[in-house]
């Protein structure tokens, strides 16, 4: 779709977030604003302090769990809502449960903000759906040709065999993944015929919030009272911040594993000092990004967090009008350098 040469872009980046001026609305702002449309529940996209939140209805309990009592309205995918003559609608992003892309239409021009997204159907969140637009604001966390995901079923097979192998050697398995999204995705496909699944408190709390929207197997929260013998041969889901903490001592003897896109790099695996690295991401790989952009039919691409410089240069060489924009989104970096997300739920 060709884009009209306009004076001011429909969505622009300021010091608070992605701003739609005609509507007076921010998308995933990082500083407090009056009205915010939120793509998903991760801490770098849904921040504290906005007066009014709009998001997919599945995400409502998630951000309420994280942010407490806020004023929030839930929308369906594809439902159009108008603010100051600007039409907004949410479309599935396939990133985690309740994640959306935001479509913005004004005077015949369509922009889409991807939030975070992945193209593979993970069997737990509503699959990504490309939306036709003139301009596409895309994440590019894994925007390098070095990232090529294997099908989830293959990765889950590896994880389940790893668990089984550890069990046969008399060891417990500790599997690290961030508490919203990755943990439930792992949980859904762990093979319960092998043994029992245990959870760190942060993951159990979040899983309780998500259960109504997903068919998840039974889990047992690890508490002070949990006996060592109970855990024997089981798998323990824990946030990455638990790695190296005193909390995991109860699990001795154990093997550690981590599920993340970064595990594609040997250096990252060694740095995290985990025994098993499983390449499983909730973001798109190189091909996923390229095919999604193509499917939008857009002319202009704005690349946000990730390898944005490299990715936009490649897009420019391939006929797109691409540029980068600074944001405060962290993508999957958050799970490599655990900060706020898990800590506020640890206690």
């Amino acid at each position, binding site marked *: 779709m060709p884009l009209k040469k306009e004076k001011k872009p429909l969505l622009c980046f300021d010091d608070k977030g992605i701003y739609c001026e005609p509507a007076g609305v921010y998308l995933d702002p990082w500083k407090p604003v009056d009205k915010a449309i939120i793509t998903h529940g991760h801490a770098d996209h849904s921040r504290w302090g906005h007066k009014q939140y709009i998001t997919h209805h599945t995400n409502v309990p998630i951000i309420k769990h994280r942010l407490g009592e806020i004023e929030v309205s839930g929308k369906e995918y594809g439902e159009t809502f108008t603010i100051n003559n600007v039409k907004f609608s949410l479309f599935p992003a396939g990133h985690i449960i309740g994640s959306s892309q935001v479509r913005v239409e004004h005077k015949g021009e369509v922009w889409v903000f991807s939030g975070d997204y992945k193209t593979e159907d993970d069997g737990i969140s509503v699959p990504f759906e490309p939306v036709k637009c003139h301009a596409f604001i895309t994440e590019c966390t894994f925007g*390098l*040709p*070095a990232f090529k995901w294997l099908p989830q079923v293959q990765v889950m097979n590896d994880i389940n065999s790893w668990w089984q192998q550890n069990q046969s050697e008399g060891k417990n398995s500790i599997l690290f993944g961030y508490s919203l999204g990755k943990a439930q995705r792992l949980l859904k496909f762990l093979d319960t015929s092998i043994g029992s699944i245990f959870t760190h408190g942060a993951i159990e709390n979040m899983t309780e919030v998500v259960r109504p929207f997903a068919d998840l197997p039974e889990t047992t929260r690890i508490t002070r009272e949990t006996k060592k013998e109970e855990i024997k041969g089981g798998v323990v889901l824990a946030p990455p911040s638990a790695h190296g903490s005193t909390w995991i001592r109860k699990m001795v003897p154990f093997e550690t594993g981590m599920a993340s896109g970064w595990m594609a790099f040997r250096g990252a695996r060694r740095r995290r000092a985990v025994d*098993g690295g499983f390449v499983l991401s909730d973001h798109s790989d190189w091909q996923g990004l390229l095919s999604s952009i193509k499917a939008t039919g857009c002319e202009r691409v704005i690349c946000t967090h990730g390898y944005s410089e*490299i990715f936009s240069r490649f897009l420019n060489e391939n006929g797109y009008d691409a540029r980068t924009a600074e944001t405060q989104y962290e993508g999957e970096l958050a799970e490599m350098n655990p900060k706020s997300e898990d800590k506020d739920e640890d206690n």
Partner: protein
Amino acid sequence: MEEFAALIRELDSTNKTTVKVAALTRYFQRVPNKDKVWAIAILSHRRPPRPVNTTLLRTFAAELANIPLWLFEESYHIVGDLAETIALVIPPAEESSEKSLTQYLEEIIDLKAATEADKKEYLHENWAALNYYERFVFTKLITGSFRIGVSQKLMTRALSKATDIDEDVLAYKLMGDWDPQKITFQKLILEENEEDFLSKPYPFYLAYAIEGEPGDLGDPADWSAEHKWDGIRSQVVIRNREIFVWSRGEELVTDKYPEFSAFLEVIPDGTVIDGEILPFPDGDIGTFNDLQTRIGRKTVSKALLNKTPVILKAYDVLEWEGKDIRTLPFLERRKILEKLHATIATEDLPFHLSETITFSNWKEATAERERAREVKSEGLMLKRWDSPYLVGRKKGDWWKWKVEPLTVDAVLTYAMRGHGRRSNLFTDYTFALWQDDELVTFAKAYSGLTDAEFRQVDAWIKKNTLERFGPVRFVKQELVFEIAFEGIAESSRHKSGVATRFPRILRWRKDKKIEEANTIEELKQLIPK
């Protein structure tokens, strides 16, 4: 190849030494002898010469992956390892290859003489037929430097478990110059063969840094002290009217130091000396910087020989009259060495004794250590008089006791991504000091911060990049670090006019502003007169 790649994958997926040794042992028990020899060769850094240069490798890989070369390069800077980048960007293979490790290595050796077109065809064909790990390992065999967290010591331990041959005996058999293409497993490992031992050095005995105070070592009368020389640790082997000079990296460096051929005339057969190669310009010990001019050269010009001659500073004798005397107490070995030195020493012979220092209490030893920079040493070596010469790094009998490093406060100016476990993190830094109103580069450092600190600095760099030059980032001048280094010398090759030895980060001075960093002038005042 499938088995070797599986081994590397197994080694990669654990941090536990016992698990690594078990995996290696199983491998040695399972594979054909020829593959064992090659695996030993690769894990002891005896790779075949590189058949294809890395520029071509990059070009070929980018072509096969169907991406522009610049994109391949960018990916390489981020991944931090060439073989890994190649393995990642090329689409996955459908099936795995049936060729053995030996077959691949023989092909790689033959590939060196092939035309560029044939090289490309060979690589494209094999990359496309290997799965991710096999492709990574295959490419590693081509690029060399096979660092996978397995030391030669670990490998030797596993081999010992698989063959029931003593670890120290294996370490000795694996020393020196053997050719994996020609030697059999039988000959290398299983057989006793006197002839093969002609050139072989002994495994080096390495010291740990002293913990706590030397006073904790007990009675000073039990200890010998000598200066810790800053050159190339080496063994000089004289047997059957031939001389072999070995560096600690088990590299045969005889040709690089032709001065030592004079030893043949005066030192009897059946002698192995342990010592330090030191530069000796103008009749005095030089700096490590002087030695640098000799290290890289395969052949040495007359002019260089005159300008920077070397000597052997001898401190131990391991073989005497054809007998392995490593089990004799150090005191006895020292007597033999001193007697030999007294008999043969002349002004011209580049054979010097590393003098032992007389001291009656630790205070005196401490005082001698303070003189280290004056005599161009790094500190003292403390050796127990009754100690045997052991194999590898062992605690207890030998200690290195270095002088405190020199330090300056410097400003971080440029950063690059690291390699290996630091890939994709900015951990390689350039530091600058003040000269007039300018910050002038004086050293690069890669180590000294904790993982957590590296992560913090990495995040700061990503937010404070002012300019990019390929992989290098010029950053806002704001962070100050205390940089430590072992030695310092004038140098015309460095912009600052100064070369530092082994610079590293001592601590992040969050309390300091860049105005408080040191000056080049202050740095120069540290150069010993």
